[in-house]
């Protein structure tokens, strides 16, 4: 009997995979839903990074976006509304060998899941978190979410939402030990892919807010940014999300932003005139809670029994 070893997968060479190796059930989102494009990007990322499907787990809560795991051909955990992050953290705790992705919605993460979101940022355990922000509750049919913009009419606020929206980026930046905070849009596949790729290579908790179209309920929501890309602020930096010429051509409003600069990140994140995309903040030195949770993984059964025996001795009469 042995403890868990990552080298149990006895493969001399990483395997090659095709997109089909990651395609689960047929996605049942509405036509034009931004979730499709994230699914696409993620499947490509998995293939390009040669992630063994059996070593990869997609964890989600409840919502349209949280159906994500069903559409992957990997392991998945489609749990409870708001509770994806505790589950993902528990999976990570003793499994440094798994690739963990989390799919969560603006309601799932920023409303019912708020406490877990804030604390998961602080735990900084390695995983990629995609927060699908369509500014609405999709699955339950058009109720206000924390990110719904003021005045938008919803089924719970037929005269328009009362409050200015929650800003998940500024909130995240306020959490000590948060280590990777990025923002991208579903309708620009290259930037989306590049952002997720950075997130995947980050050694800790990588939080990516994906602005996601929901044509069914909030069709006009991101229209402005789609029709006029100059309303988007592309954050560029050698340490940020890599941008190629095509991206530079698309996004004419740009700013150089060093993701090591938390204060400046806060500054950009507060802007309401433009929608910033790119990497706000990265800190590879932040402590990783999973470096503690996985301690002792290699303790052998014999060692355990021996240690227990010694412990019992202390209670002996």
């Amino acid at each position, binding site marked *: 009997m042995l403890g868990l070893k990552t080298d149990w997968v006895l493969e001399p060479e990483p395997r090659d995979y095709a997109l089909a190796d990651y395609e689960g059930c047929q996605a049942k989102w509405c036509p034009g839903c931004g979730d499709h494009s994230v699914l696409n990007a993620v499947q490509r990322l998995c293939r390009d990074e040669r992630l063994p499907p*059996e070593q990869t787990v997609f964890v989600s809560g409840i919502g349209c976006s949280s159906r994500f*795991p069903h559409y992957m051909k990997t392991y998945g955990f*489609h749990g409870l509304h708001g509770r994806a992050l505790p589950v993902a953290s528990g999976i990570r705790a003793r499994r440094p060998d798994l690739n963990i992705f989390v799919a969560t919605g603006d309601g799932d993460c920023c409303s019912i899941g708020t406490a877990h979101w804030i604390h998961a940022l602080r735990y900084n355990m390695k995983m990629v978190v995609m927060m699908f922000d369509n500014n609405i509750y999709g699955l339950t049919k058009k109720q206000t979410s924390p990110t719904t913009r003021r005045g938008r009419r919803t089924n719970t606020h037929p005269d328009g939402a009362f409050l200015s929206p929650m800003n998940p980026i500024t909130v995240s930046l306020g959490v000590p030990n948060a280590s990777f905070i990025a923002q991208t849009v579903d309708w620009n596949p290259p930037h989306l892919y590049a952002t997720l790729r950075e997130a995947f290579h980050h050694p800790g908790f990588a939080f990516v807010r994906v602005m996601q179209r929901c044509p069914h309920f909030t069709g006009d929501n991101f229209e402005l940014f789609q029709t006029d890309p100059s309303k988007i602020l592309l954050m560029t930096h050698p340490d940020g999300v890599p941008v190629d010429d095509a991206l530079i051509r698309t996004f004419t409003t740009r700013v150089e932003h060093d993701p090591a600069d938390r204060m400046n990140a806060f500054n950009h994140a507060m802007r309401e005139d433009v929608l910033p995309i790119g990497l706000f903040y990265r800190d590879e030195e932040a402590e990783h809670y999973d470096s503690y949770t996985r301690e002792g993984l290699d303790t052998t059964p014999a060692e355990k029994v021996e240690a227990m025996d010694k412990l019992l001795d202390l209670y002996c009469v």
Partner: protein
Amino acid sequence: MNHIVSPVTAKIQKDAVTLLDEHIVEIVSDSGEGAQTAGQIFGQASAMMGNGVWTVEIIPAEIEPPSRSVPGASGNRIRVGARALHNAGDKADVVIGFNEQVLYSRIDQGAFKKGTHIFLENKWENDPREDVRNTYNEALTDLRERGYKVTGVPMEACCLEYVRDARRGKNIWVLGLLCRLYNRDKDLMRKMITRRFQAKGEKVLNSNLQLFESGFSWARSNLTQTWRIPPRRDDRPHVVMNGNQALAMGCMAAGMEICSMYPITPATSVSHYLAANFKKVGGFVHQAEDEIAAIGFAIGASYAGKTAVTITSGPGLALKTEFIGLAVMAEVPLVIVDVQRGGPSTGLPTKVEQSDLLAVLHGSPGDAPKIVLAPSTIEECFHFMITARRLAEEFRGPVFVLSDANLATGVQPFPRPRLSEDQLSPPIDQSDWDPDVAPYNWDSESGLSRRPIPGQRGGAYVLTGLGHDRHSKVVYESGTNQKTIAMRSKKLAALQRTLKPPTIFGDDTGDLLVVGWGSTRGAVEEAVTRLRKQGRKISSVNLQFLSPLQPGLTEMFRRFKKVMTIEINYSDKKDDPAFAGARRPAQLAMLLRARTLIDIDFWSRVPGSPLQPGILVDVLKHRMDEMRGATC
């Protein structure tokens, strides 16, 4: 020095040693005066000398209550016997009080009886504060009027010969007194004191040993009567610990590697013990941001291959309700420990109650069958954790272990468990999974199936709390829903078929069968024993499985004229006319009535304290007399 030697003590024969079957000693002080340490050492020493021992903590409700205040009572009750003991017993025989006020808290709890010997610090009679002197003297009179035998003891005065702050020495002085009073092995006790204090340096150690000797010699000079409680015959090596320590040890012995929790009294200390020791077996305690996250984390860890444990009490259990439903629905092995306290709501956080049974059985919306065990002794707290982990994995779902505040802080010696690698959970299976085997490949008879673990090639599936088929695909179709819910129910039935009927304590026919569960076992069996000695046809049975119930209960119950449960939870009183025609039953009674259709009676109370066997004797006698009245 001005020793009050009470008339009672004066009458005691010089150097007489009386043999006792058992005695109950309480040491009660302000919090911070160390009565707990003294009690622990005294209890442990007695266990080492071969006595049966049951110790309970006396804990104040506040962190630092004012000194000399009734709610400030802090200390230990130690029951020492010539045979194995499984409960805290009735009224105290001997009480050591550091001041008179704290004794009233114990009197409220019904802890003393006429004739209880009280050894009381007497420094208060000369206190510079007049009000203190007055209250002390009034109390002295009152205590004697109540029939207690009070002996004034110059604890502080003696201690001040060795230490400057007597508050930090009295407890060890008292230990010396007790050592003499009960003829304990003096070398053994000195050794234990040494073990406790040697880390604090020689000076501290020496003054404690001096205090111990001082107490001892004071007792030798002043107390002429001493007692001896002979050891019981059991040569097996024993360990002594409380229920929460046993749960923690059981966790480790079961090979669990993750305990995910959020602090809540009286469950928290399980995680303290684990946090201090888990590292040694490669385990980890996760203190989550709340109870929901705690169980979510445990479920995540379990899903990933290692069955984890989450530990909580009433309010925390309430918060876990939704995730418990998921664990049932998606069949995630999980051990959930509920150390029950007084409810409802925040209730009585530090007090014992057994009122989470129905919440555990029926708390989750929808049909959520689960396995529920209730240990009845400290030893079972240890062993049931090993069983619980195995059941969780075999039956692929949550397993509850229902402990309570009584077991949590009760201390008892029990045979040293034998450890073995077989008890540990096996390593995470990472072999290839046969892709033709569905992730819920339910056996149509038993509902059982094996689960794939992330990392197993060929086993990838998406766990979901939505209605799903054997492939874990979301399906809302009528037939599938009916069938899959039945599969989860079949697991309980399958487990039941493997169980044996519980063992009756006493004869298996008779007038009255007392049914109990959990920590009341010791008190119930003791009461039954006493009544049987009086010739009553009474027996008892303790249910270790609450879900599924062990088989054969209906037949067992039918062999008695009357069956009743004894529980520490609320039920409407029998004779209160306010409840005429609508008497709400105790929790186990409710369950057994529905299942057996036998008119099971019940007596249950919520005093926030463990049941005393003596009170049970009265209750049971009364019910039996009623029966007799009814039949003749």
